[in-house]
């Protein structure tokens, strides 16, 4: 249904009806802003990047070949933009060492410890080299679907699988190092 609506909107825009583009923006604003947010962790920058992605899509609508779904083309275009933007101006994140574990987790209900742990993992993702970080971000955004991740990154599925595996391995190593450091600091 959405695919047919997208196709019809694109035809209208290409025939000169700019207002038809609004339907596309309304339909895809959530996913595009959320994807941008995963790349930059900043709400206003995410909206700016998503706006630029829509603008680029508008400029190059005539280059969409109908072989792939419009959404696939749009995500690939947005991913390309977000990756280059975040390589140019990296996302502002905290260092892994800035995230403190509670001094005595037994006194808390566990939710703070869990939140800190989750924050630690997300920050660790941002310390990975871009090619692993981008693969991980897209993989979880696309509901852990390797094929969609590969299409967005314009890479073969095998390459994406290899990057995911290597990225996870690096992530585990970073996290275990941090957890050992925290353990040692508690014992001291």
């Amino acid at each position, binding site marked *: 249904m959405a695919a047919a609506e997208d196709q019809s909107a694109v035809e209208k825009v290409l025939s000169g009806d700019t207002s038809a583009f609004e339907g596309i*923006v309304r339909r895809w604003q959530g996913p595009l*802003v959320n994807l941008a947010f995963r790349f930059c962790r900043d709400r206003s920058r*995410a909206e700016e990047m*998503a706006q630029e992605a829509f*603008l680029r899509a508008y400029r190059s609508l005539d280059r969409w070949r109908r072989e792939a779904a419009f959404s696939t083309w749009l995500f690939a275009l947005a991913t390309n933009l977000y990756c280059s933007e975040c390589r140019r101006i990296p996302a502002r994140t905290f260092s892994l060492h800035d995230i403190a574990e509670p001094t005595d987790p037994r006194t808390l209900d566990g939710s703070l410890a869990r939140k800190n*742990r989750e924050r630690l993992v997300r920050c660790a993702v941002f310390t990975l080299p871009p090619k692993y970080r981008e693969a991980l971000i897209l993989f*979880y*955004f696309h509901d852990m679907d390797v094929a969609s991740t590969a299409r967005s990154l314009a890479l073969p599925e095998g390459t994406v699988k290899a990057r995911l595996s290597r990225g*996870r391995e690096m992530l*585990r190593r970073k996290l275990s190092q941090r957890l050992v450091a925290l353990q040692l600091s508690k014992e001291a």
Partner: protein
Amino acid sequence: MRDDDLDRILYKEQKIMPSSAFVASVMDAVRREKMAPPPIPFPWKRALPGLFAAGITLVSVLVAGRTLFIQETATHPLPVQLPSTFAVILAGWNSLGASWIAVALVTSVASVKLSMHFATRKRLIG
């Protein structure tokens, strides 16, 4: 940390809602884009004769230079011992007055750097 834990944490990501003005802002940008005049294309039709003439001239100069060199070496054969490369470069350097060009370039770069340095400092102070 196990893969399951990583998957669970990274999959469960905070969802954000675009601001209410987002669609309007994108559509404004799209309308501005439509209103903007199209970029001026490079005038290939006008430039082609010029480019063609430049190419012909370059080839003619190379051919003439080669012919002149062959004629010169036929009438006045090259000395057995050629002057050193350094001497040839130095002679060329002096004949072009390259020292003055180098001084002028260094002075220009220094003045640009100095003015940019002052301008940046002023902006930081301001």
